[in-house]
């Protein structure tokens, strides 16, 4: 999948918010530097650009402009700068950038794009700093720059072996002009990139000192929680807070934009108060919506032609001329993000300023929203990005930040807002429900001649961003076809279309987004075609990938490491899948057993080609993470709708995968010096089809609906 031709969902946000443009400009405008040079400002540290500050004590502060939600950006991004700067890693201190409209470029964290989009800019930033330090040292020694080199945070003069630590060069380097051009290292010269550098955030995450938004404490702060209308599209009719106000510690109950706020002296008081408010909701038009009606709507929409997202050859004719036609319908449900940390935010709105601590994936948008709510100019809104207790796309929506700002403004006090788990689960932006209609044609030799795939699903863009200008042709949401239209298989006639099926249920970016459902449908269906062609599922795919070396590469690697051509242990069966997303190529082999109604996934072998690996341990962790997240959606919970509401409320009815259900996961990385591509999401899409295909190998039964239920298994 060529990155540049893919319109990713968050590119859309970038275009809309116009924040992306700042990056390159911000980089090479070292305003402070010029002020220093002009003697207007005196400063001891050397800050060649917004990412780097070299301090006189020889420590180096590297700033991270993306949100840390577990994916490791507070380690991988500084590693990229540090390598080009030739720093000693022990010098490095990491600081989190607050929101700023353009200083750090786009701060939107998602689309598995932190490393892939910052790879070159951060390397240039590091190389620029290094070049200036080199220049400063050579001037001080009055030697030719070519006689000097950098190593472990110091400049060394080869002949005389003189050495100057970067920290000793801050004043002189700050006076130098920024070089217009710098050369970057070749992959063989990397000293930090490619190493298993331990994550910088681990020590604080094991002793309880890591600060999440929920842990912020400011003087005079009160606590709040919200009650949102349980029916999507409904609204508040009336409420009676008399009982709630009698509870000790409850301070106030009032209406906000999205429901009610309960303000109290402690979190627990606010939760108790929340339960005691009597509320009458106006159910609106959605009060009788349920999952079966949504399914019926999807079925009826699926019968109509969709907007074409990919067309090659003439699939309709090729199907009619096929020796064998296979067809199947696949279904995937709504899914909740269920981050372990429920939505929360601290806000302190004053007359002339506003401070916010938010676990957000979209800090610039949150800052903008807060400016609008408070009426303050944007430079008076300070938004600090805390650690995120999981993101997975949920925190690209800032509804919880707006809540906190609105409440603090109203009560003129700092407030810590925390949603109860139940509100978090019932007021998410869900992974869209989807229905997939597939047809495939084979000729008499078992070659695939045609493939059609109609994706029927709500559009995230057209239903959750209605206020945004929409850059797509009407009704064709290309994002909804990610992972469906870009199948790498060499099939002469392909038709992929999209039928929009919006509902009142809010939908959003759920880890790997539509790739999760589209890969499930496509990769299971390819398996069906292999069976119809009487070919081995691995060999069958490999043949179809003759023009796609990187897809074929990971497929081959996963097959080999899993022992695909050897017999699995008795009672175990293997399924294979491969899928490219967010620029990376991933293949997985799942080994399962099916006994009566007990399906167990014992082992998953995963191969990824994400170009140059920045930190192997983090890439492997992201594969493990994507697989476990994907297994929850394959084997465990789903979100269903009853009477316009989400039927699930907590982990008893929306179960997540547990340690005893977690397979042994082996991850193999393709050695590559191609530019790095995504890792946060690409590990997820292949797991559902790999497991479903393994169930078929075990039982001869096709799984066409997620999550896999006992009734789907042969023993039931």
């Amino acid at each position, binding site marked *: 999948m060529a990155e540049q031709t893919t319109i990713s969902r968050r590119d859309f946000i970038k275009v809309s918010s116009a924040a992306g443009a700042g990056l390159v400009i911000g980089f090479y405008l070292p305003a402070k530097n010029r002020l220093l040079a002009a003697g207007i400002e005196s400063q001891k540290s050397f800050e060649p650009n917004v990412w780097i500050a070299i301090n006189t004590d020889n420590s180096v502060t590297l700033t991270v402009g993306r949100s840390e939600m577990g994916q490791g950006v507070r380690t991988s991004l500084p590693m990229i700068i540090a390598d080009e700067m030739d720093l000693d890693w022990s010098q490095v201190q990491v600081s989190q950038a607050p929101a700023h409209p353009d200083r750090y470029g786009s701060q939107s964290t998602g689309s598995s794009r932190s490393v892939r989009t910052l790879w070159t800019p951060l390397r240039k930033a590091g190389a620029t700093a290094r070049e200036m330090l080199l220049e400063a040292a050579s001037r001080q020694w009055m030697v030719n720059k070519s006689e000097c080199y950098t190593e472990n945070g110091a400049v060394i003069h080869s002949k005389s072996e003189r050495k100057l630590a970067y920290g000793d060069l801050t004043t002189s380097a700050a006076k130098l002009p920024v070089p217009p051009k710098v050369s970057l290292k070749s992959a063989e010269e990397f000293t930090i990139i490619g190493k298993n550098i331990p994550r910088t955030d681990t020590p604080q995450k*094991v002793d309880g000192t890591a600060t999440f938004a929920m842990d912020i404490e400011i003087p005079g702060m009160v606590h709040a929680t919200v009650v949102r209308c349980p029916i999507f599209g409904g609204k508040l009719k009336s409420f009676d807070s008399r009982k709630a106000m009698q509870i000790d510690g409850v301070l106030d109950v009032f209406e906000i934009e999205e429901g009610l706020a309960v303000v109290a002296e402690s*979190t627990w008081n606010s939760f108790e108060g929340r339960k005691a408010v009597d509320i009458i909701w106006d159910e609106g038009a959605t009060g009788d919506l349920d999952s079966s009606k949504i399914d019926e709507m999807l079925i009826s929409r699926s019968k109509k032609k969709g907007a074409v997202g990919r067309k090659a050859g003439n699939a309709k004719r090729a199907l009619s001329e096929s020796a064998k036609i296979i067809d199947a319908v696949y279904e995937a449900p709504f899914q909740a993000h269920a981050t*372990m940390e429920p939505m929360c935010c601290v806000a302190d709105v004053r007359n002339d300023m506003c401070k916010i601590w938010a676990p957000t994936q979209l800090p610039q948008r949150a800052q903008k929203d807060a400016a609008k709510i408070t009426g303050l100019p944007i430079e008076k809104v300070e938004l600090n990005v805390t650690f995120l207790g999981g993101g997975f796309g949920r925190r690209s929506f800032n509804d919880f930040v707006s809540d906190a700002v609105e409440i603090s403004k109203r009560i003129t006090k700092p407030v810590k807002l925390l949603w109860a788990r139940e509100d978090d689960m019932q007021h998410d932006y869900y992974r869209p429900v989807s229905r997939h209609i597939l047809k495939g044609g084979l000729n008499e030799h078992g070659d695939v001649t045609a493939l059609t795939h109609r994706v029927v699903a709500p559009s995230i863009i057209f239903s959750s961003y209605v206020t945004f200008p929409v850059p797509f042709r009407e009704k064709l949401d290309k994002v909804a076809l990610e992972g469906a239209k870009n199948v790498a298989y060499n099939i002469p006639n392909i038709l992929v279309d999209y039928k929009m099926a919006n509902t009142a249920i809010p939908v959003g970016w759920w880890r790997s987004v539509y790739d999760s459902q589209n890969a499930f449908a496509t990769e299971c269906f390819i398996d069906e075609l292999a069976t119809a062609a009487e070919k081995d599922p691995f060999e069958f795919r490999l043949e179809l990938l003759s023009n796609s070396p990187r897809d074929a590469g990971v497929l081959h690697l996963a097959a080999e490491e899993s022992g695909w051509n050897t017999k699995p242990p008795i009672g175990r069966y293997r399924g294979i899948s491969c899928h490219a997303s967010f620029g990376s190529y991933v293949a997985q082999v799942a080994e399962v057993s099916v006994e009566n109604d007990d399906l167990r996934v014992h082992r998953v072998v995963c191969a990824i080609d994400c170009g140059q690996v920045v930190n192997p341990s983090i890439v492997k962790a992201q594969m493990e993470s994507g697989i476990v997240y994907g297994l929850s959606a394959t084997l465990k919970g789903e979100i269903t709708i009853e009477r316009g509401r989400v039927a699930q409320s*907590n982990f*008893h009815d929306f179960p997540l995968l*547990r340690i005893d259900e977690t397979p*042994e996961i082996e991850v193999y990385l393709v050695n590559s010096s191609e530019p790095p591509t995504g890792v946060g999401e690409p590990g997820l899409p292949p797991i559902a089809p790999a497991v479903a295909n393994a169930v078929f190998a075990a039982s001869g039964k096709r799984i066409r609906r997620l999550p896999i239920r006992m009734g789907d298994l042969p023993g039931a």
Partner: protein
Amino acid sequence: MPRFILTVNGKEQSVSVAPDTPLLWVLRDDLGLTGTKYSCGRGLCGTCTIHLDGEPTRSCMTTIEYAEDQEITTIEGLSQDGLHPVQKAWIAEDVPQCGYCQSGQIMTAAALLRENSMPTDSDIDVAMKMNLCRCGTYQRIRKAIHRAAEEMRRG
């Protein structure tokens, strides 16, 4: 409001709250011990796990009244320097991702290792299966527990 005397991490603390207040909120909101996190509020996920007289306990489901006469240990008090063998093993295996559930995971693992110095994989499953991790760090948790057990046996 009744007053309760608690022993938290070896120190006596006094708080005035309603008797049915969950220990979790007393720790976080009254005593400023924010290493213990809230996630489900119903004893379903293990995120808020602390030790009561050494036993792993869900602080979101434990009332202050019940906790009063027991030794309470939180992640802040698990070790003097943040380097309990379990914490060291967590660092060595690079376990945490978002990190939000990890205090609870570590408290549960530390309690397991006090009872069982050589846990098998299935012992780990039994002890840890009520602790959810949405980032899916389970495999590294398993490795880290084996590593910590080995270190503790070596003394």
